[in-house]
């Protein structure tokens, strides 16, 4: 009889990580295609439609880039937390708090010029999102509360707080009682680049990506973070400031997600309303896990997942595939990558059962 012999590799295969990723992607797409076929939707047409819809034209690529911006920022934050083995599931709520913070500035100071208002919004979004991440950190460090649950509950609280604001004190007086704030004045809106639909938020992405990369590569704190992530007990033993790192990491995580919220509220919707919540925080978890910590790979993964969302709309429009299909694909991709990573870390061979 044969059995599988599994040995851990001395060093994980590097180039095969990419192979695994693409293999997983292909497998997920195949399973999704089968599911479509089972529902009598033509699978090959669907896959072609998915790709074309996402990447098939300049306009499509532009759509993907626009969508990738908030996903990128949230993912960057979540990835930082993951590096320290902190499971920040709260990116969604931190995103909302950032939007709320920025909106406060926009509504309070509509008449100030843009070079005062926009930095103000940037700052409040950063702080608001950061605080929303910091509170779970404190609860974790001083009361040993599991951050997975706390950050998740904070998502619900944030969304309900947003509801309270737009149905109540911040409701727009001219929108016939619908739950939304006043439209932002032009000084509070992050503008579009030239004639494209892209907004200047892309600069924020580049800035954050570079800043984080420098942080991890060249600063001491960054090094401590990486080291602590690999082996928390050893790091503590070596005297690394675990507490401070946790707080920093969750604050940063929340702050970056907060910036994503600021951009959505300011540039894409030009006001605050409940529909700003579309699940970027959860997609960010998928991206962060797929891309580990390299800002470039996070960028690519964000772009791909944004493409998934954009392409899916075409599937909906042309093939009447229900909207829930997106969740299936995201979940499948994550699971297959997880399973596939096994082959990167372990060597499998056949051997005889003794």
């Amino acid at each position: 009889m044969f059995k599988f012999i599994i040995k851990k590799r001395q060093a994980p295969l590097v180039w095969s990580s990419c192979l695994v990723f693409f293999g997983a992607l292909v497998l997920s797409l195949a399973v999704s295609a089968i599911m479509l076929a089972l529902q009598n939707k033509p699978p090959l047409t669907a896959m072609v439609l998915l790709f074309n819809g996402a990447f098939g034209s300049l306009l499509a690529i532009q759509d993907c880039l626009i969508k990738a911006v908030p996903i990128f920022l949230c993912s960057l934050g979540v990835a930082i937390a993951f590096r320290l083995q902190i499971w920040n599931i709260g990116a969604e709520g931190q995103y909302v708090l950032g939007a709320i913070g920025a909106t406060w500035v926009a509504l309070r100071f509509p008449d100030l010029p843009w070079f005062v208002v926009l930095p103000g919004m940037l700052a409040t979004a950063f702080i608001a999102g950061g605080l929303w991440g910091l509170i779970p950190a404190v609860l974790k460090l001083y009361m040993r509360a599991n951050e997975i649950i706390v950050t998740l509950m904070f998502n619900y609280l944030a969304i309900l707080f947003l509801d309270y604001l737009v149905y109540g004190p911040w409701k727009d007086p001219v929108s016939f009682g619908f739950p939304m704030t006043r439209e932002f004045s032009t000084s509070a809106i992050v503008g579009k680049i030239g004639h494209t639909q892209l907004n200047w938020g892309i600069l924020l992405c580049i800035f954050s990506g570079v800043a984080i990369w420098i942080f991890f590569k060249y600063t001491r704190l960054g090094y401590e973070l990486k080291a602590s992530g690999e082996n928390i007990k050893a790091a503590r033993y070596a005297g690394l400031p675990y507490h401070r790192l946790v707080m920093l990491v969750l604050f940063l995580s929340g702050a970056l997600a907060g910036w994503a919220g600021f951009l959505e509220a300011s540039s894409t919707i030009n006001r605050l309303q409940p529909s700003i919540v579309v699940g970027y925080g959860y997609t960010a978890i998928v991206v962060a896990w797929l891309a580990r910590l390299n800002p470039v790979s996070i960028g690519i993964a964000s772009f791909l997942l944004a493409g998934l969302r954009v392409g899916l709309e075409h599937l909906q429009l042309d093939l009447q595939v229900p909207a829930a299909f997106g969740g299936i694909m995201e979940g499948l991709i994550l699971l297959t990558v997880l399973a596939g990573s096994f082959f990167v870390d372990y060597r499998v061979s056949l051997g005889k059962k003794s």
Partner: protein
Amino acid sequence: MNPELLIPLLAAAVQSGTPILYATLGEIFTEKSGILNLGVEGIMMIGALAAFVSAKFFGNPILAFLIGGCAGAFLAGIHGLVCLNFQGNQVVSGLALTILGVGLANYLGTPFIGQAAPGFSPTPLPVLSKIPILAPVFFNHDPLVYTAYLIPPAMWAFFRYTRWGMGMRAAGEYPRAASAAGLRVAGYRWAGVLVGGYLVGLGGAYLSLAYTHLWTNGLSAGRGWIAIALVIFAFWHPGRAVIGAYLFGGVMAFQLRLQASGTHIPSSLLLMLPYALTVMVLVLSSWKRQGTGVPSALGINIEPSE
């Protein structure tokens, strides 16, 4: 709020807490064996859908209930496969399972929205339903609530007195030593994942067979996550899980009755109550106790032995 509402509120708490109780008990079972399964929300949704569809096709609610559990176990099995065989990170696998499970349920369930299926109705227990005060709160519900009363003591006895139960606890507390002593740790963990997933699936099935007789997208509405939190609140003890689940059910029922009584508090703020309560309860539980009962090897994959 009117004091006359207290008894109906408690009764509502019991019923509202029942799906959460099933799920919490299931997750306790899984975590005791050392596996962290965050996919509870997804499993509940799949269980709910499977149960609903089975009820429609077979017309037998009891069979449908059991099938709901099977569907839950099946989905949990994917988590088991990824974590136990492919050494996948348990946290991420669980999250992926949630995303997949919810998406799958919503997708496959689309044709069934707006349809009715046979289910369970309140059946008062013969003698017990005459006891004043206790009766309307505990003994005037559908049969699945009564079944839920039986599971916690059974689980407690299982872990305390049976060899399998102790083996499972060993798999969760000191897997390497247990393995060295000859216990099949992987086997116990698989049992933990599958049986736990089964119970969680039952919790979901409760939602579509008894709590309502309907199916729509998002039926579980976050209950799965509450269950995971309640596992910690319960210190991994089935008895305390009961308290947690009914408490939580009570809060959800409470804020609605507060609205019905005509309060002026904005509903968004009232809706925060269950989640805020979960955080508070979690923080207080984790803070107070040293060695809270968490299985020591929870969430850690065991390297495959050579």
